[in-house]
């Protein structure tokens, strides 16, 4: 048996044991046992994924496991990449989860959550390994259902959780229907439902059918990836889930939406015309800018992170779209570069976003607050958590020497050099895509300066923040694992080079663009070079010089403490400090036309005179405009349709019998006339 099969088998066994442990063991040992099993499953997933990235492949057919179709599993390098990422996130987050959920029988520590988490983790590992339509859809649905139930874990504690659950349930299933319809149509026309049969039969499909299949499948997968305008579930479900579940969803589950697009678009359908990929690119660009703008406006820490997920998935989709475009225009080496950039960004995003959600979870755990306006001063109370959040934020803002910089650099390089591809479409689209990436990177810097500076720095703005305590050892250990991943990706991305090439080859885009040069990234397809270790070393040397030289010149060595500048008006209170809302105000004004904030000023006059004001109430909200314009009308329409339908059912038995009679007669008439 190949190492991949053995590892996936071990992961399944560990996940099963974890589910049983979560269900049966008493509360005292439940989180530890279930968490240990889930960690083992994740570690086994990493082993399987790394083996596949190393060039191994594996496939198996289990005819007895499912009626009619049987189960088909296959792992190539592309699957391996997603399995490895999911496995690493699962392993670290499971360690974190032991500490996070060990504080009560409701919510994260409950029997249901502890039993479901291993199953969710298992489905994350197995979805990329599915090799037939029925197996894929079954695992996809298992992933959707387990994650839905996990989102609902804290429904007893907060009423908003239920609303989030309904949104998620509806949208994930609409996405599922879209994917199901697309893949079923594909399978029917290709003459088989295994991925091998789809691959073989893809050429016989008419262009119209291919386009329709791609649109249906991509719509479903894009909604899972949180792409605008199908993102509405994401900023609701991710914040309301327990934080370790948020981390799994944001760092492992949304990836699979991108996996689905790459797998069907490149591998199964074998590429397609430019308009497919221009649509993907446009969706990605819209998601990137809109997502990060909403994150800039958000003062809820976890909601901000969720919107940032939309942004990063948007960037990945830009890379995927560019790859498809270049492949269609006959430049496979540039296509492979763009796809490698997209996949590397996906890996980087998983590392820093899992860490960000875990750190946010520690804050919620310690303070019970997610509102940045009520946090602050946490760096003194929770130094390790603050440091880890800062490390992850450095990755998220895509600045050197963070890990996000490397993948955004690759993405920019692929787009800049994509101008070699002839055609007016590329000449117009690529500069705009570069501008979109730049704008989203700039806004991301503002977003994470806000999250870190307002949430963790300055002084506490509430009693809860003042009483915060550092996270426990398990939580810190889990976050430490994720931080190690971030650092490794930031320092030695070249180690991933050959694996990324194999993943691209598995997707049908051969070429060896990202050469493994030990530590750096050197692109042979284009003339560019980046050695992150060098950047880090240079910064360190310069920093030592900048700290050391003034110290030598200084005559008085002792550091004095002094009061803050208070304009002579007494010590500044925390209420005077900038909040997240005030920090975002200039950006909100600049993007007024896009965000359309709602403002409400309510003036109450005194009874004696209208010239005297008793009370002024000011309220400003920045609603999700896409949701407002796109979903609200549909929901209103559905509600009105429901009202109208209710008039058909007044409760009279005679009326219902009448419906039955007329319905039957109408059916018989149709049959008599039609046949």
């Amino acid at each position, binding site marked *: 048996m190949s190492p991949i099969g053995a590892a996936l088998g071990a992961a399944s066994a560990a996940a099963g044991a974890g589910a049983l442990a979560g269900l049966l063991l008493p509360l005292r040992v439940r989180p530890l046992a279930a968490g240990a099993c889930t960690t083992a499953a994740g570690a086994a997933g990493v082993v399987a994924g790394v083996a596949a990235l190393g060039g191994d492949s594996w496939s198996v057919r289990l005819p007895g496991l499912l009626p009619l179709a049987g189960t088909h599993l296959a792992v190539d390098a592309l699957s391996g990449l997603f399995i490895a990422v999911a496995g690493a996130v699962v392993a670290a987050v499971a360690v974190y989860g032991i500490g996070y959920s060990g504080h009560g029988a409701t919510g994260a520590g409950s029997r249901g959550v502890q039993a479901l988490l291993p199953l969710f983790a298992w489905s994350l590992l197995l979805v990329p390994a599915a090799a037939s339509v029925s197996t894929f859809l079954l695992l996809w649905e298992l992933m959707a259902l387990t994650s839905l139930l996990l989102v609902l874990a804290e429904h007893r504690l907060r009423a908003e959780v239920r609303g989030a659950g309904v949104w998620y349930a509806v949208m994930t299933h609409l996405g599922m229907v879209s994917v199901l319809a697309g893949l079923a149509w594909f399978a029917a026309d290709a003459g088989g439902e295994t991925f091998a049969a789809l691959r073989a039969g893809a050429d016989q499909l008419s262009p119209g059918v291919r386009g329709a299949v791609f649109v249906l499948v991509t719509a479903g997968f894009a909604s899972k990836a949180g792409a605008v305008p199908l993102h509405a579930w994401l900023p609701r479900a991710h914040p309301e889930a327990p934080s370790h579940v948020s981390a799994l969803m944001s760092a492992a589950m949304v990836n699979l939406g991108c996996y689905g697009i790459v797998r069907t678009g490149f591998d199964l359908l074998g590429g397609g015309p430019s308009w497919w990929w221009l649509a993907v690119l446009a969706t990605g660009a819209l998601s990137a800018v809109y997502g990060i703008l909403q994150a800039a406006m958000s003062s809820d820490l976890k909601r901000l992170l969720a919107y940032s997920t939309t942004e990063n998935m948007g960037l990945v989709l830009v890379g995927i779209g560019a790859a498809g475009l270049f492949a269609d225009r006959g430049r496979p080496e540039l296509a492979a570069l763009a796809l490698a950039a997209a996949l590397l960004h996906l890996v980087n995003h998983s590392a820093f976003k899992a860490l960000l959600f875990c750190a946010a979870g520690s804050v919620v755990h310690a303070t019970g607050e997610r509102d940045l306006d009520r946090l602050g001063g946490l*760096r*003194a109370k929770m130094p390790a958590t603050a440091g880890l959040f800062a490390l992850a934020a450095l990755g998220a803002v*895509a*600045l*050197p020497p963070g890990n996000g*910089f490397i993948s955004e*650099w690759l993405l*920019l*390089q692929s787009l800049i050099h994509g*101008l*070699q591809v002839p055609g007016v479409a590329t*000449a*117009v689209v690529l*500069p*705009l895509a*570069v*501008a979109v*990436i730049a*704008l989203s*990177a*700039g806004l991301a*810097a*503002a977003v994470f*300066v806000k999250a870190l*500076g*307002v949430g963790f*720095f*300055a*002084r506490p703005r509430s009693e809860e923040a003042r009483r915060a305590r550092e996270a426990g050892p398990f939580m810190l250990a889990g976050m430490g694992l994720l931080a190690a991943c971030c650092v490794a990706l930031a320092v030695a991305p070249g180690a991933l080079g050959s694996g990324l090439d194999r993943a691209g080859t598995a997707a049908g885009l051969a070429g060896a663009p990202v050469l493994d040069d030990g530590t750096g990234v050197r692109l042979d397809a*284009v*003339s*560019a*070079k*980046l*050695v992150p270790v*060098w*950047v880090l070393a*240079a*910064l360190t040397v*310069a*920093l030592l*010089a*900048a700290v050391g030289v*003034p110290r030598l*010149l*200084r005559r*008085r060595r002792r*550091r*004095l*403490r*002094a*009061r*803050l*500048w208070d304009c002579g008006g007494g010590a500044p209170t925390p209420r005077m*400090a*900038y909040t997240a809302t005030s*920090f975002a105000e*200039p*950006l909100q004004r*600049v993007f007024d036309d896009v965000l359309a904030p709602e403002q409400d000023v309510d003036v109450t006059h005194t009874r004696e005179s209208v010239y005297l004001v008793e009370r002024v109430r000011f309220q400003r909200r920045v609603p999700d405009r896409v949701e407002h314009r796109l979903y609200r009308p549909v929901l209103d329409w559905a509600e009105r349709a429901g009202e109208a339908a209710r008039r058909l059912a007044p409760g009279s038995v005679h009326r219902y019998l009448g419906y039955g009679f007329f319905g039957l007669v109408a059916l018989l008439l149709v049959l008599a006339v039609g046949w």
Partner: protein
Amino acid sequence: MSALGYAAIAAQAGAVVVGAPLLTGWMRQVRARLEGRAGAGTAQPWRDLRKLLRKEPITAAGTGPAFRVAPALLVASTLVVAALIPLVSTATPISGHADAILVVGLLALGTVTLALAGLDTGTAFGGMGSSREMTISALVEPTILLAVFALSIPAGSTNLAAIISGAAEDPARLASPAGLLATAALAVAVLAETGRIPVDNPSTHLELTMVHEAMVLEYAGPDLALVELGAQMRLTVLLGLQASLFVPWGIATAGDSWGSLLLALAVLAVKVAALGALLAAAEVFWAKLRLFRVPELLAGSFLLALLAVTASYFLGTGGGIL
């Protein structure tokens, strides 16, 4: 060669550190003379720095590590940029790493650390300054990267050494519409990045108009010296880069001798001093824009950069990528 290359790196970094306060002094002097004042002399910023460096370090109460480390990190990131970009020579041992996107990222790193330090003080001024600074820097980013894009098209690479040595060999690139538009776009971006009029006023202390000064209000002593030096170095580096990109002559190339290195240093000083004098003279006649008019200026520069990229595609500058 190698010794010459390392000497070039040291010369660049040293010139930027030593020259940055002198450039600021020179610009203030030009401005003072144009306004009919005598001025404090070109070396005054150096005297200020010496005074500040000798004072005892002061930490404001309630601030944390971000506040302490930000000045040094600002100087460090600018120092790396100064060593990296081809100001004096295009053939240093590290010129292969001088990627334009990396340079943009390193400069943004300095901005972000200072903004975090502003928030770390927990005062209204600090938060206000960093909020405004991050807003402006987010809006500048697209302009800068599109200008980089436009410049990289003829050279076929985002490597600054390749761009500059290519432009020195083929001056037609600079006079092309793409080159001119990119120059204009980058000039506006440089004004915004260095906090000059009309985006920010470096000599203001009025809370309604402060951006950079509000962020660094709590700094004193040697920390303030580093912040001042960092800001001055950023200005020098960006003006030097602008000069190298669009007047690429005089920069030493591979195979040049010690003499040409010295010549390149002198030429750099002249170019940067001329640009600085131009900027100082322009500032006498300009007024600072309202904060919420700044996005209009930046949108204009973004448009120029976009035009630069599309112009270079449709008009075809030849060579390189196309």
